[in-house]
Structure formats: C-alpha cells, structure tokens
C-alpha cells in the first residue's frame, strides 16, 4: 500500500492511483500478520512460517524480502498477471490456487484488509475457495498444543467475543494489538539473496464475473473550518449547537 504520508492523486487515465513518487510499503495490517505468525512459531516447536504475495516480481519481491528479513522461513510469489487495484475475487482465486500448490497449511493469516483497497474480500474468498473456515477481526490468537486448537478473540461492533477452532483455520487479523518487530541489518542483507518460489496461477476464465475499477477521485476538499468566535465558553457552546442544528443539520 502507499505510505500514509504520501500525497495521493489520480493517474492520467483517471482510473488508478498515480504511483509515480509514491512509496509502496508492506501494509501495516500485513506487518501485524507476519508478527503474529512469528510469535506462533516460537510457541509451537517445529512449525514454519511461509509468506505468499500476488503480483509481478517488481511489486512482490521487495515486500516478500521484507517479510523474510523479519524471519519468515519461505516466500512464494503467485504470478497471475492481475494488475494493482484489481478484482479482489480474481486475486483471491489465484492466491488460493498458489496456496493449494504449496501443500497443506494449518493456519492461513491475512492482514485485516489489504491496506490499499480496504475491501477485506481476499481473505474470506481464499478460505472459501479452499474450503477452510474463516474468522475475521481476530485479536490475541493463540494455539493450545495440548488440545490442538486455536483460541482467539474476535472484535465486533458489539465488543469482543471469544472463539476456539481446530485446524485448519483461516484468520483475518485486526491490527495494532502487537508491535511488529523490525528487521536487523544482517537479516535484511541475507533476505536479498534468499530464494523466492514462483507459482503460476491459471488466468481467470473469460466471462467470469469481474470487478473493474472505472474511476478514482479525491473527495471534494473541505472548505476549512468555520471558526466559532465567542467571548465566554457558554457562548461558544450555544453558537456551535445552533450551527450544528440549523446549518449542518446533524444535531441528534
């Protein structure tokens, strides 16, 4: 995803994001997923962490190497010719094919939402394509070796629920409950030479339902705040309530 501080603008076609001068980084949500995987590996002896990304090498390799530098055991890139800001379901079906080709997996971890499109469609769709149950908005994921089950909390609009699940399981993580580690310089140098497995996915069949980006627009800029002038705090409060009621029409 683009760095939070980058200035966003539409590209010349008006459909996509102008990527010139925008730095792409490992999405925060994905960073948190890598951290969670590494913590589970520490807790479950013999387990391994693999990282998978979809896209052309020019877009995936830097991110995959960043994950390897953080300590992932292996990295795979699925090359399916799906462009950026592409159809999330096509992305999911291609990823599922690549994940199936890697062999069986006990746990699939996804960042909460792909940081660049916020759709949150990819994780549940990959799991559905693989026939694995999916639970999203998960915090505090643990594995109990004595029962062989995962235990976690799910954060919903109504608060936090507790869940348990056997393997295999697909999980969409809620970010920000952990502090992702940072890579050491020797690990970064090693990751530059680490192999990346290339998995090919069949192109989506013609006529498959598709989601196609057709325009990208910035919301109309806000005019800047209308400042409330006042002599006493009570007057500021009265004036604000009045404009919220009569002008903005939001007062509940």
């Amino acid at each position, binding site marked *: 995803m*683009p760095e939070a501080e980058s200035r*966003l603008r539409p590209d010349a076609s008006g459909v996509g994001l102008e990527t010139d001068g925008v730095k792409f980084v490992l999405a*925060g949500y994905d960073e948190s997923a890598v951290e969670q995987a590494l913590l589970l590996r520490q807790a479950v002896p013999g387990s391994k962490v693999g990282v998978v990304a979809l896209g052309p090498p020019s877009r995936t390799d830097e991110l995959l190497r960043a994950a390897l530098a953080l300590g992932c055991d292996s990295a795979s890139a699925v090359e399916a010719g799906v462009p950026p800001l592409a*159809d999330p*379901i096509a992305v999911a079906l291609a990823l599922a094919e690549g994940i199936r080709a890697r062999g069986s997996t006990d746990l699939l971890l996804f960042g909460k939402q792909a940081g*660049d*499109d*916020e*759709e*949150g*469609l990819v994780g*549940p*769709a990959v*799991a*559905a*394509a693989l026939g*694995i*149950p*999916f*639970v*999203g*908005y998960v915090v505090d994921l643990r594995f109990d070796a004595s029962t062989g089950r995962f235990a976690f909390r*799910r*954060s*919903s*609009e*109504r*608060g*936090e*629920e*507790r*869940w*348990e*699940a056997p393997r295999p*399981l697909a999980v969409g993580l809620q970010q920000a409950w952990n502090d992702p580690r940072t890579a050491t310089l020797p690990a970064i140098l090693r990751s530059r030479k680490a192999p990346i497995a290339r998995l090919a996915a069949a192109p989506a069949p013609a*006529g498959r*339902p598709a*989601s*196609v*980006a*057709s*325009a990208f627009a*910035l*919301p109309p800029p*806000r005019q*800047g*705040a*209308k*400042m*409330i002038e006042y002599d006493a*705090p009570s007057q*500021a*409060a*009265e004036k*604000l309530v009045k404009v*919220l009621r009569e002008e*903005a029409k*939001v*007062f*509940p």
Partner: protein
Amino acid sequence: MSDAVLVVGEVEDDRLAPATLEAVGVARQLAGAGGTVVGFLAGSHARRLAEEFARLGVGRVRVAADPRFDPAPPASLAPAVAAAAAGVGAATILLAGTTFGRELTGALAVAFRATAANGVTEVERVSGGWRVTRPIFGGRANERRSLEGERAVVSLRPHAFPPAEGVAVPAQIEPVGAVEIPAALFGPTRTAPAVASGSSGPSLADASVVVAGGRGLRSADDFHLVEELASALGGAVGASRAVTDAGWRPQTLQVGQTGKAVSPQLYIAVGISGAIQHLVGMSSSRVIVAINSDPSAPIFRVADYGIVGDLFAIVPALTAEVRRVRGA
C-alpha cells in the same frame, strides 16, 4: 430494470440490525418497480425474526433454521445464502457492511460465483452489471467500480443510506432447503459472546455521533469530559493514538490508521491535533467539529467547525448546552 434482490439479515440483540434496514431500502431501489426483495435469515431464531422483515414490507424470507448457525463464523453462512439466492433467482445479494457482512461478502462471492464489493456508499444497476462507489485509503479518495457479470454481492457502508420504512405484510417463510455445508465450516465455535469494551452507549463503529479525545486532555482523569459530552449526545467515545498508547483508555477506542475507521454523521475531536494517522480514520465523517487550544492544529483543516480555546472550559459548557437543548 427489475430484479430479485436477496437481503442477508444480520441479528443484533435478538433483533434485525439497523444496518440491515438500510440494506432493505437499497434493495427496493435496485429491484425496481417489477422486482422483488427477499430476506434471508440463519439460525434457530430465524423464523421469529422473519416477522421483522415482514413489518418492513419484505414478506418473503428464506430461512436456514440450522442451529449450527447459533452462531457460526459469518463466512460459514455463504453456502446457505448462495443457495437461497439461487432458489429465488436473485442476481444481487445485499448485506450491511458491518464486520459480519464484510466477512461474509468475500466468501459469498466464491459460493455464489459472483463479483463483489465491500463497504459501498453508492450502488446502481446498469446494463451488464452494477456500478458502485466506495471510499478507499481511509476516506482519502473514492473509487468507482463496475461490477460486470450476472451476479453480484455488495455490502453497504453503515450510515451511508437511510433505513427502510414500509408497510407491514404477512410473513411468507420459505426454508432454504438442503444445502451441503462442509463440516469444517462449523469447526470454529464461539465460547463467549461479545463483552462491550470501554464505554457504554453505542459502539464506535455503529454510532452516528462520535466524540474523541486526544493528548490535549492532559491526563486519564480528565478524559471523563469527553465521555460526558458523548453521553449527552447519545454518541460513542473515541480516542487518539496518544491516549491509547498512554493507557488512558483501551486500544479498542482508538480511531485512526492503526485503530478503527469511523464515518459518523457528527465527529467531535477534542484536544486532538490531527496527525495524518488519526485523520485517515475519521476524515470521511459527514460533519467534523474540532476543539483545540492551538489555532494552527492540522485538525482544523479537515474540520467543518472549529473552536479555538481551553477545552477544559469549552467542553463542559458544550455538554451543559447539549443537555439543555435536548431537555435532559
């Protein structure tokens, strides 16, 4: 164009969730004059809750009364919903874009062999498919998408559409019928229901009013000023990262890139300077009010109304004024 549209009912506190009512309104528009809107409900209470659809004028409700849905992970409902949609000949499935709906949408796209979009603020039927608009990058931009094909699954951003009103009709409950659901999808089990974290009142993601506090509050003890204003407005409490990092309030209240993204009708930022980290989580709110002692704080650039001053004097005065006009 007329169509059959299936609306997936979400249950909250043993009732249809408010966001489902918004989906019913949109479904009517999409279905068109000659089209039909059909409800869907899962779980052992589904038959009783079908009456709530009927009260909105949606009489036909497909029901998957399997107690294994009490509750199942949202995504595990996908095979039953897809079967219901196919059974009524629906081309469009609509859901509320809550955590429930957003998780289900992706799985449903695969089960229903459909295209999908999550969290849209506009949706219309066009020749050859649908056209949707959705905020992206935390509301910093809008994206238009064409959903091409015969079938689409769309979840709607909460609060983006008015709730449906309708004339009650008799409920006509139809079982979904035999659906083969892989046993693995019922593997995850909920061992404890939701426990509200943080404050009372509406939840942060659902609330139409959010009052959020920042570093300007100076201490955990003074955060109650924010909570009292939220309570007077019937809104939810939010916090900036500075507040949750300092441990004044739990992380679940954090609004921003590393916390929750909210888009209420009214967002009041109290003592929040407006770091980009925070702005991406709230800048798509309809009306933003900023109260801050620093006139050059970046929050005033995204706010609609601003008050420069001492929040320790302004906020209690505002709470009192709100209580007065609301007659409380």
